[in-house]
Protein backbone atom coordinates (compact mmCIF):
# COMPACT_ATOMS: atom_id res chain seq x y z
CA UNK A 1 0.00 0.00 0.00
CA UNK A 2 2.77 2.45 0.97
CA UNK A 3 4.51 1.73 -2.32
CA UNK A 4 1.41 2.48 -4.37
CA UNK A 5 0.81 5.68 -2.38
CA UNK A 6 4.44 6.71 -2.94
CA UNK A 7 4.13 6.17 -6.69
CA UNK A 8 0.82 8.07 -6.84
CA UNK A 9 2.24 11.04 -4.93
CA UNK A 10 5.29 11.19 -7.20
CA UNK A 11 3.09 10.99 -10.30
CA UNK A 12 0.77 13.76 -9.09
CA UNK A 13 3.72 16.03 -8.25
CA UNK A 14 5.33 15.45 -11.66
CA UNK A 15 2.09 16.15 -13.54
CA UNK A 16 1.55 19.29 -11.45
CA UNK A 17 5.09 20.51 -12.20
CA UNK A 18 4.52 19.63 -15.85
CA UNK A 19 1.38 21.77 -16.00
CA UNK A 20 2.58 24.72 -13.89
CA UNK A 21 6.22 25.38 -14.87
CA UNK A 22 5.60 25.72 -18.65
CA UNK A 23 2.83 28.24 -17.91
CA UNK A 24 5.17 30.25 -15.68
CA UNK A 25 7.83 30.18 -18.41
CA UNK A 26 5.24 31.21 -21.00
CA UNK A 27 4.04 34.12 -18.91
CA UNK A 28 7.67 35.15 -18.27
CA UNK A 29 8.24 35.10 -22.01
CA UNK A 30 5.23 37.38 -22.59
CA UNK A 31 6.48 39.91 -20.05
CA UNK A 32 10.25 39.68 -20.67
CA UNK A 33 9.86 39.94 -24.44
CA UNK A 34 7.49 42.86 -24.06
CA UNK A 35 9.83 44.82 -21.83
CA UNK A 36 12.85 44.06 -24.03
CA UNK A 37 10.86 45.52 -26.94
CA UNK A 38 9.70 48.54 -24.89
CA UNK A 39 6.11 47.27 -24.61
CA UNK A 40 4.12 46.28 -21.55
CA UNK A 41 2.75 42.92 -22.68
CA UNK A 42 -0.44 41.50 -21.12
CA UNK A 43 -1.74 43.91 -18.45
CA UNK A 44 -5.44 43.18 -17.90
CA UNK A 45 -6.18 39.45 -17.48
CA UNK A 46 -6.37 38.62 -13.77
CA UNK A 47 -5.61 42.18 -12.67
CA UNK A 48 -2.00 42.31 -11.50
CA UNK A 49 0.21 42.78 -14.58
CA UNK A 50 -1.89 40.31 -16.57
CA UNK A 51 -0.78 37.27 -14.57
CA UNK A 52 -3.74 35.18 -15.76
CA UNK A 53 -3.14 35.79 -19.47
CA UNK A 54 -2.17 32.17 -20.22
CA UNK A 55 -5.11 30.79 -18.23
CA UNK A 56 -7.37 33.01 -20.33
CA UNK A 57 -5.60 31.70 -23.45
CA UNK A 58 -6.26 28.15 -22.26
CA UNK A 59 -9.96 28.85 -21.80
CA UNK A 60 -10.06 30.35 -25.29
CA UNK A 61 -8.31 27.31 -26.80
CA UNK A 62 -10.75 24.94 -25.08
CA UNK A 63 -13.74 26.74 -26.61
CA UNK A 64 -12.45 26.70 -30.18
CA UNK A 65 -13.75 24.29 -32.80
CA UNK A 66 -11.49 21.33 -33.47
CA UNK A 67 -10.98 21.47 -37.24
CA UNK A 68 -9.41 18.63 -39.21
CA UNK A 69 -8.79 19.51 -42.88
CA UNK A 70 -10.54 17.32 -45.47
CA UNK A 71 -7.23 16.41 -47.14
CA UNK A 72 -5.57 15.41 -43.87
CA UNK A 73 -4.71 11.92 -42.70
CA UNK A 74 -7.14 11.98 -39.78
CA UNK A 75 -5.61 9.40 -37.43
CA UNK A 76 -2.02 10.62 -37.70
CA UNK A 77 -3.20 14.23 -37.52
CA UNK A 78 -5.07 13.50 -34.29
CA UNK A 79 -2.29 11.71 -32.41
CA UNK A 80 0.61 13.97 -33.50
CA UNK A 81 0.19 16.55 -30.67
CA UNK A 82 0.25 13.72 -28.13
CA UNK A 83 3.45 12.29 -29.61
CA UNK A 84 5.00 15.75 -29.38
CA UNK A 85 3.94 16.33 -25.77
CA UNK A 86 4.20 13.03 -23.87
CA UNK A 87 8.01 12.57 -24.15
CA UNK A 88 8.62 15.77 -22.17
CA UNK A 89 6.28 14.56 -19.41
CA UNK A 90 8.14 11.24 -19.28
CA UNK A 91 11.53 12.99 -19.15
CA UNK A 92 10.46 15.19 -16.23
CA UNK A 93 10.02 12.03 -14.17
CA UNK A 94 13.75 11.23 -14.16
CA UNK A 95 15.23 14.71 -13.58
CA UNK A 96 16.62 15.02 -10.03
CA UNK A 97 15.57 18.21 -8.23
CA UNK A 98 17.38 17.62 -4.94
CA UNK A 99 19.25 14.83 -3.15
CA UNK A 100 16.76 11.94 -3.31
CA UNK A 101 14.10 14.19 -4.84
CA UNK A 102 13.46 12.42 -8.14
CA UNK A 103 10.46 10.80 -9.78
CA UNK A 104 12.25 7.59 -10.73
CA UNK A 105 15.97 6.86 -10.48
CA UNK A 106 17.06 5.05 -13.65
CA UNK A 107 20.47 3.45 -14.00
CA UNK A 108 21.13 4.85 -17.48
CA UNK A 109 19.07 8.00 -16.91
CA UNK A 110 21.10 10.18 -19.28
CA UNK A 111 20.56 7.78 -22.17
CA UNK A 112 16.89 7.45 -21.29
CA UNK A 113 16.44 11.22 -21.43
CA UNK A 114 18.21 11.61 -24.77
CA UNK A 115 16.32 8.67 -26.28
CA UNK A 116 12.89 9.87 -25.19
CA UNK A 117 13.56 13.47 -26.27
CA UNK A 118 14.38 12.19 -29.76
CA UNK A 119 10.89 10.67 -30.01
CA UNK A 120 9.21 14.05 -29.45
CA UNK A 121 10.36 15.38 -32.79
CA UNK A 122 8.43 12.57 -34.54
CA UNK A 123 5.31 14.46 -33.41
CA UNK A 124 6.10 17.50 -35.51
CA UNK A 125 7.13 15.38 -38.51
CA UNK A 126 3.82 13.49 -38.25
CA UNK A 127 1.89 16.75 -37.89
CA UNK A 128 3.65 18.26 -40.89
CA UNK A 129 2.99 15.31 -43.14
CA UNK A 130 -0.59 14.53 -42.10
CA UNK A 131 -1.92 18.08 -42.46
CA UNK A 132 -2.21 17.78 -46.24
CA UNK A 133 -0.66 21.22 -46.67
CA UNK A 134 2.53 21.91 -48.61
CA UNK A 135 3.84 24.44 -46.10
CA UNK A 136 3.34 21.93 -43.30
CA UNK A 137 5.21 19.24 -45.24
CA UNK A 138 8.10 21.67 -45.76
CA UNK A 139 8.08 22.42 -42.06
CA UNK A 140 8.03 18.73 -41.19
CA UNK A 141 10.97 18.04 -43.50
CA UNK A 142 12.95 20.88 -42.01
CA UNK A 143 12.16 19.52 -38.54
CA UNK A 144 13.48 16.11 -39.53
CA UNK A 145 16.66 17.55 -41.08
CA UNK A 146 17.26 19.72 -38.02
CA UNK A 147 16.74 16.84 -35.60
CA UNK A 148 19.20 14.63 -37.44
CA UNK A 149 22.00 17.18 -37.52
CA UNK A 150 21.62 18.44 -33.93
CA UNK A 151 21.15 15.02 -32.30
CA UNK A 152 24.86 14.30 -32.76
CA UNK A 153 26.35 17.34 -30.92
CA UNK A 154 23.68 16.93 -28.23
CA UNK A 155 24.64 13.32 -27.52
CA UNK A 156 28.40 14.03 -27.78
CA UNK A 157 28.22 16.94 -25.34
CA UNK A 158 26.13 14.93 -22.90
CA UNK A 159 28.50 11.96 -23.07
CA UNK A 160 31.42 14.24 -22.14
CA UNK A 161 29.74 14.90 -18.76
CA UNK A 162 28.99 11.20 -18.36
CA UNK A 163 32.70 10.50 -18.96
CA UNK A 164 33.73 13.09 -16.38
CA UNK A 165 31.32 11.75 -13.75
CA UNK A 166 31.92 8.10 -14.61
CA UNK A 167 28.20 7.32 -14.53
CA UNK A 168 25.11 7.61 -16.73
CA UNK A 169 22.76 8.18 -13.81
CA UNK A 170 21.53 11.78 -13.54
CA UNK A 171 21.64 11.99 -9.69
CA UNK A 172 25.06 10.31 -9.88
CA UNK A 173 26.32 13.02 -12.24
CA UNK A 174 25.09 15.80 -9.94
CA UNK A 175 26.70 14.12 -6.93
CA UNK A 176 30.04 13.83 -8.71
CA UNK A 177 29.91 17.47 -9.82
CA UNK A 178 32.59 19.87 -8.52
CA UNK A 179 32.71 23.65 -9.01
CA UNK A 180 35.76 23.45 -11.31
CA UNK A 181 33.68 21.46 -13.80
CA UNK A 182 32.15 24.82 -14.81
CA UNK A 183 35.21 25.97 -16.82
CA UNK A 184 36.19 22.38 -17.65
CA UNK A 185 32.83 21.47 -19.24
CA UNK A 186 32.00 24.98 -20.48
CA UNK A 187 32.30 24.16 -24.20
CA UNK A 188 30.16 21.07 -23.79
CA UNK A 189 27.58 23.07 -21.86
CA UNK A 190 27.23 25.68 -24.60
CA UNK A 191 27.06 23.02 -27.31
CA UNK A 192 24.42 21.05 -25.38
CA UNK A 193 22.29 24.12 -24.74
CA UNK A 194 22.43 25.33 -28.35
CA UNK A 195 21.77 21.87 -29.80
CA UNK A 196 18.87 21.47 -27.36
CA UNK A 197 17.42 24.81 -28.47
CA UNK A 198 17.66 23.63 -32.07
CA UNK A 199 15.85 20.38 -31.19
CA UNK A 200 13.07 22.45 -29.61
CA UNK A 201 12.97 24.58 -32.78
CA UNK A 202 13.08 27.75 -30.71
CA UNK A 203 14.25 30.99 -32.32
CA UNK A 204 16.88 31.55 -33.70
CA UNK A 205 16.59 27.90 -34.80
CA UNK A 206 12.91 28.11 -35.83
CA UNK A 207 13.32 27.64 -39.57
CA UNK A 208 10.84 24.69 -39.54
CA UNK A 209 8.17 26.86 -37.91
CA UNK A 210 9.03 30.23 -39.48
CA UNK A 211 5.68 31.96 -39.12
CA UNK A 212 6.52 34.62 -41.71
CA UNK A 213 7.22 32.18 -44.55
CA UNK A 214 5.80 28.76 -43.57
CA UNK A 215 2.94 30.13 -41.41
CA UNK A 216 3.96 27.96 -38.40
CA UNK A 217 5.03 24.97 -40.52
CA UNK A 218 3.77 21.69 -39.04
CA UNK A 219 1.19 23.52 -36.88
CA UNK A 220 -0.49 25.49 -39.69
CA UNK A 221 -3.68 23.42 -39.73
CA UNK A 222 -4.06 22.93 -35.99
CA UNK A 223 -6.66 24.76 -33.93
CA UNK A 224 -8.07 24.70 -30.43
CA UNK A 225 -6.84 22.14 -27.92
CA UNK A 226 -4.52 20.33 -30.30
CA UNK A 227 -2.67 23.57 -31.06
CA UNK A 228 -2.58 24.30 -27.31
CA UNK A 229 -0.92 20.90 -26.78
CA UNK A 230 1.81 21.86 -29.27
CA UNK A 231 2.35 25.15 -27.45
CA UNK A 232 2.48 23.32 -24.10
CA UNK A 233 5.04 20.92 -25.62
CA UNK A 234 7.22 23.86 -26.67
CA UNK A 235 7.25 25.43 -23.19
CA UNK A 236 7.59 22.07 -21.44
CA UNK A 237 10.55 21.54 -23.77
CA UNK A 238 12.14 24.78 -22.53
CA UNK A 239 11.69 23.62 -18.92
CA UNK A 240 13.16 20.18 -19.68
CA UNK A 241 16.12 21.60 -21.62
CA UNK A 242 16.89 24.13 -18.87
CA UNK A 243 16.59 21.48 -16.17
CA UNK A 244 18.84 19.07 -18.09
CA UNK A 245 21.49 21.73 -18.73
CA UNK A 246 21.35 22.67 -15.04
CA UNK A 247 21.71 19.02 -13.96
CA UNK A 248 24.50 18.15 -16.38
CA UNK A 249 26.60 21.30 -16.55
CA UNK A 250 25.64 23.65 -13.71
CA UNK A 251 25.67 21.20 -10.82
CA UNK A 252 21.91 20.79 -10.28
CA UNK A 253 21.12 21.26 -6.59
CA UNK A 254 24.67 22.31 -5.57
CA UNK A 255 24.96 25.88 -4.27
CA UNK A 256 25.73 27.84 -1.10
CA UNK A 257 23.27 28.96 1.62
CA UNK A 258 19.92 28.13 -0.01
CA UNK A 259 18.46 24.58 0.06
CA UNK A 260 19.13 22.35 -2.97
CA UNK A 261 15.75 22.35 -4.74
CA UNK A 262 15.67 26.16 -4.58
CA UNK A 263 19.06 26.32 -6.31
CA UNK A 264 17.78 23.93 -8.95
CA UNK A 265 14.72 26.14 -9.60
CA UNK A 266 16.90 29.27 -9.76
CA UNK A 267 19.17 27.64 -12.35
CA UNK A 268 16.22 26.38 -14.40
CA UNK A 269 14.62 29.81 -14.52
CA UNK A 270 17.91 31.57 -15.26
CA UNK A 271 18.40 29.26 -18.26
CA UNK A 272 14.78 29.70 -19.36
CA UNK A 273 15.42 33.44 -19.26
CA UNK A 274 18.42 32.95 -21.54
CA UNK A 275 16.20 30.97 -23.93
CA UNK A 276 13.78 33.91 -24.11
CA UNK A 277 16.64 36.42 -24.35
CA UNK A 278 18.12 34.57 -27.35
CA UNK A 279 14.72 34.62 -29.06
CA UNK A 280 14.47 38.39 -28.73
CA UNK A 281 18.11 39.08 -29.67
CA UNK A 282 18.88 37.02 -32.76
CA UNK A 283 17.29 36.80 -36.21
CA UNK A 284 16.30 33.42 -37.58
CA UNK A 285 19.09 31.33 -39.10
CA UNK A 286 18.68 30.27 -42.73
CA UNK A 287 18.41 26.53 -43.44
CA UNK A 288 22.00 26.24 -44.80
CA UNK A 289 23.34 28.31 -41.91
CA UNK A 290 21.55 25.96 -39.52
CA UNK A 291 23.17 22.89 -41.04
CA UNK A 292 26.57 24.62 -41.18
CA UNK A 293 26.41 25.59 -37.53
CA UNK A 294 25.65 22.00 -36.56
CA UNK A 295 28.23 20.20 -38.67
CA UNK A 296 31.07 22.74 -38.89
CA UNK A 297 30.55 24.46 -35.55
CA UNK A 298 28.97 22.31 -32.87
CA UNK A 299 30.13 18.79 -33.78
CA UNK A 300 33.88 19.65 -33.83
CA UNK A 301 33.47 21.67 -30.60
CA UNK A 302 31.75 18.72 -28.94
CA UNK A 303 34.59 16.45 -30.08
CA UNK A 304 37.16 18.90 -28.66
CA UNK A 305 35.28 18.85 -25.36
CA UNK A 306 35.23 15.04 -25.42
CA UNK A 307 39.02 14.94 -25.96
CA UNK A 308 39.58 17.54 -23.23
CA UNK A 309 37.42 15.56 -20.81
CA UNK A 310 39.33 12.38 -21.60
CA UNK A 311 42.77 13.99 -21.09
CA UNK A 312 41.84 15.71 -17.83
CA UNK A 313 40.16 12.58 -16.46
CA UNK A 314 43.33 10.57 -17.16
CA UNK A 315 45.58 13.24 -15.61
CA UNK A 316 43.47 13.54 -12.46
CA UNK A 317 43.09 9.79 -11.95
Amino acid at each position, binding site marked *: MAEVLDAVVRLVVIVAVFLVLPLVVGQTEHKVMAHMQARLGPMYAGGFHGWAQLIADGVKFAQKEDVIPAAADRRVFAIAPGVALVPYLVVLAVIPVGPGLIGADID*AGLFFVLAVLGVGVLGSIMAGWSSGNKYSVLGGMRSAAQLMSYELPLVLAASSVAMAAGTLSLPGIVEAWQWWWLPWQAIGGVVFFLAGLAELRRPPFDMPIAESELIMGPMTEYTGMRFALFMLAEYAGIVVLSALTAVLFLGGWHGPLLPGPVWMLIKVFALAFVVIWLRVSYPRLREDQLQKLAWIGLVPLALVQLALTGVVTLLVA
Partner: protein
Amino acid sequence: MNEAVPSYLSPTGQEIVFLLLGAVAVGSALLVVTTKQLVHAALWLVVCFGALAGCYLVLTAEFVAWVQVLIYVGAIVALLLFGIMLTRAPIGRSDDLDSGNRVVAAIVAVATAAVLVTVVVDGFRTAYADLTPGRGSAEALGGSIFRNWVLPFEALSVLLLAALIGAIVLSRTDIRGR
Protein backbone atom coordinates in the same frame (compact mmCIF):
# COMPACT_ATOMS: atom_id res chain seq x y z
CA MET B 1 20.86 -20.80 -15.99
CA ASN B 2 19.60 -24.31 -15.23
CA GLU B 3 17.50 -23.97 -12.13
CA ALA B 4 14.19 -25.67 -11.53
CA VAL B 5 12.03 -24.98 -14.55
CA PRO B 6 8.75 -23.33 -13.58
CA SER B 7 5.60 -24.63 -15.21
CA TYR B 8 4.44 -23.01 -18.45
CA LEU B 9 0.88 -23.16 -17.17
CA SER B 10 1.36 -20.42 -14.56
CA PRO B 11 3.24 -17.60 -16.28
CA THR B 12 4.56 -14.71 -14.23
CA GLY B 13 3.59 -11.11 -14.90
CA GLN B 14 6.93 -10.51 -16.62
CA GLU B 15 6.35 -13.37 -19.04
CA ILE B 16 2.85 -12.18 -19.91
CA VAL B 17 4.11 -8.64 -20.60
CA PHE B 18 6.95 -10.04 -22.69
CA LEU B 19 4.54 -12.14 -24.77
CA LEU B 20 2.21 -9.17 -25.29
CA LEU B 21 5.11 -6.95 -26.39
CA GLY B 22 6.25 -9.70 -28.75
CA ALA B 23 2.78 -9.88 -30.25
CA VAL B 24 2.73 -6.09 -30.73
CA ALA B 25 6.18 -6.21 -32.36
CA VAL B 26 5.19 -8.98 -34.79
CA GLY B 27 1.81 -7.43 -35.54
CA SER B 28 3.19 -3.98 -36.28
CA ALA B 29 6.02 -5.50 -38.33
CA LEU B 30 3.41 -7.25 -40.48
CA LEU B 31 1.55 -3.95 -40.87
CA VAL B 32 4.78 -2.27 -42.00
CA VAL B 33 4.97 -4.54 -45.03
CA THR B 34 1.25 -4.86 -45.75
CA THR B 35 -0.08 -1.31 -45.33
CA LYS B 36 -0.92 0.50 -48.53
CA GLN B 37 0.15 3.87 -47.14
CA LEU B 38 3.82 4.67 -47.41
CA VAL B 39 4.19 6.97 -44.39
CA HIS B 40 2.03 4.69 -42.23
CA ALA B 41 4.56 1.93 -42.89
CA ALA B 42 7.32 4.12 -41.40
CA LEU B 43 5.11 4.99 -38.43
CA TRP B 44 4.24 1.33 -37.78
CA LEU B 45 7.99 0.74 -37.76
CA VAL B 46 8.14 3.12 -34.79
CA VAL B 47 5.62 0.97 -32.93
CA CYS B 48 7.58 -2.17 -33.83
CA PHE B 49 10.90 -0.71 -32.58
CA GLY B 50 9.18 0.56 -29.45
CA ALA B 51 7.76 -2.88 -28.67
CA LEU B 52 11.19 -4.39 -29.24
CA ALA B 53 12.71 -1.88 -26.80
CA GLY B 54 10.02 -2.93 -24.33
CA CYS B 55 11.06 -6.58 -24.79
CA TYR B 56 14.69 -5.66 -24.00
CA LEU B 57 13.47 -3.81 -20.93
CA VAL B 58 11.53 -6.81 -19.64
CA LEU B 59 14.67 -8.91 -20.17
CA THR B 60 16.51 -6.40 -17.89
CA ALA B 61 18.70 -5.17 -20.77
CA GLU B 62 17.99 -1.58 -19.80
CA PHE B 63 20.86 0.09 -21.64
CA VAL B 64 20.19 -1.76 -24.90
CA ALA B 65 16.54 -0.72 -24.69
CA TRP B 66 17.36 3.00 -24.47
CA VAL B 67 19.94 2.71 -27.25
CA GLN B 68 17.26 1.02 -29.37
CA VAL B 69 14.92 3.97 -28.83
CA LEU B 70 17.66 6.59 -29.32
CA ILE B 71 19.13 5.16 -32.51
CA TYR B 72 16.21 3.44 -34.21
CA VAL B 73 13.14 5.44 -33.22
CA GLY B 74 14.89 8.80 -32.81
CA ALA B 75 17.35 8.75 -35.70
CA ILE B 76 16.68 5.97 -38.24
CA VAL B 77 12.93 6.52 -38.51
CA ALA B 78 13.39 10.30 -38.65
CA LEU B 79 15.85 9.71 -41.51
CA LEU B 80 13.39 7.34 -43.22
CA LEU B 81 10.55 9.85 -42.91
CA PHE B 82 12.80 12.62 -44.22
CA GLY B 83 13.71 10.47 -47.20
CA ILE B 84 10.08 9.58 -47.90
CA MET B 85 8.95 13.19 -47.63
CA LEU B 86 11.80 14.35 -49.85
CA THR B 87 10.76 12.00 -52.66
CA ARG B 88 7.03 11.28 -52.41
CA ALA B 89 4.70 11.04 -49.48
CA PRO B 90 1.11 10.94 -50.72
CA ILE B 91 -1.70 11.03 -48.16
CA GLY B 92 -3.99 8.06 -48.69
CA ARG B 93 -3.47 4.71 -50.36
CA SER B 94 -0.99 4.13 -53.16
CA ASP B 95 -1.79 1.10 -55.28
CA ASP B 96 1.70 0.63 -56.69
CA LEU B 97 3.31 -0.18 -53.34
CA ASP B 98 3.22 -3.97 -53.79
CA SER B 99 6.43 -5.37 -55.19
CA GLY B 100 6.34 -8.12 -57.81
CA ASN B 101 8.73 -10.09 -55.63
CA ARG B 102 6.40 -10.33 -52.68
CA VAL B 103 5.82 -14.09 -52.93
CA VAL B 104 9.58 -14.77 -52.99
CA ALA B 105 10.09 -12.22 -50.20
CA ALA B 106 7.44 -13.90 -48.05
CA ILE B 107 9.06 -17.32 -48.59
CA VAL B 108 12.51 -15.97 -47.64
CA ALA B 109 11.09 -14.23 -44.56
CA VAL B 110 9.23 -17.33 -43.35
CA ALA B 111 12.27 -19.53 -44.02
CA THR B 112 14.59 -17.18 -42.09
CA ALA B 113 12.15 -17.06 -39.19
CA ALA B 114 11.88 -20.87 -39.23
CA VAL B 115 15.69 -21.27 -39.14
CA LEU B 116 16.06 -18.78 -36.29
CA VAL B 117 13.26 -20.30 -34.22
CA THR B 118 14.62 -23.83 -34.72
CA VAL B 119 18.15 -22.79 -33.74
CA VAL B 120 16.98 -20.95 -30.62
CA VAL B 121 14.59 -23.71 -29.54
CA ASP B 122 17.19 -26.39 -30.22
CA GLY B 123 19.96 -24.45 -28.51
CA PHE B 124 18.17 -23.63 -25.27
CA ARG B 125 15.46 -26.32 -24.98
CA THR B 126 13.99 -25.87 -21.51
CA ALA B 127 16.84 -23.75 -20.12
CA TYR B 128 15.40 -21.12 -17.84
CA ALA B 129 17.20 -17.78 -17.53
CA ASP B 130 16.62 -16.12 -14.20
CA LEU B 131 16.06 -12.41 -14.73
CA THR B 132 17.75 -10.46 -11.98
CA PRO B 133 17.72 -6.69 -12.49
CA GLY B 134 21.09 -5.00 -13.00
CA ARG B 135 22.68 -7.59 -15.25
CA GLY B 136 22.00 -5.43 -18.32
CA SER B 137 23.00 -2.13 -16.71
CA ALA B 138 25.42 0.19 -18.48
CA GLU B 139 28.21 -0.77 -16.07
CA ALA B 140 27.86 -4.52 -16.58
CA LEU B 141 27.56 -4.10 -20.33
CA GLY B 142 30.58 -1.77 -20.57
CA GLY B 143 32.68 -4.12 -18.47
CA SER B 144 31.77 -7.08 -20.65
CA ILE B 145 32.40 -5.22 -23.94
CA PHE B 146 35.76 -3.75 -22.95
CA ARG B 147 37.08 -6.80 -21.07
CA ASN B 148 35.87 -9.80 -23.07
CA TRP B 149 34.77 -8.44 -26.43
CA VAL B 150 37.27 -5.68 -27.25
CA LEU B 151 38.43 -7.20 -30.54
CA PRO B 152 34.98 -7.54 -32.17
CA PHE B 153 34.15 -4.07 -30.87
CA GLU B 154 37.25 -2.55 -32.47
CA ALA B 155 36.68 -4.47 -35.71
CA LEU B 156 33.13 -3.08 -35.87
CA SER B 157 34.46 0.44 -35.24
CA VAL B 158 36.87 0.14 -38.16
CA LEU B 159 34.06 -1.20 -40.35
CA LEU B 160 31.82 1.76 -39.46
CA LEU B 161 34.69 4.20 -40.05
CA ALA B 162 35.30 2.68 -43.49
CA ALA B 163 31.58 3.04 -44.32
CA LEU B 164 31.67 6.66 -43.13
CA ILE B 165 34.65 7.54 -45.29
CA GLY B 166 33.07 5.68 -48.21
CA ALA B 167 29.91 7.75 -47.88
CA ILE B 168 31.91 10.98 -47.85
CA VAL B 169 33.91 9.94 -50.91
CA LEU B 170 30.74 8.91 -52.80
CA SER B 171 28.90 12.14 -52.02
CA ARG B 172 31.75 14.54 -52.80
CA THR B 173 31.84 15.46 -56.48
CA ASP B 174 35.36 16.92 -56.32
CA ILE B 175 36.93 13.53 -55.52
CA ARG B 176 37.18 11.58 -58.78
CA GLY B 177 37.99 7.96 -59.43
CA ARG B 178 41.08 7.32 -61.51
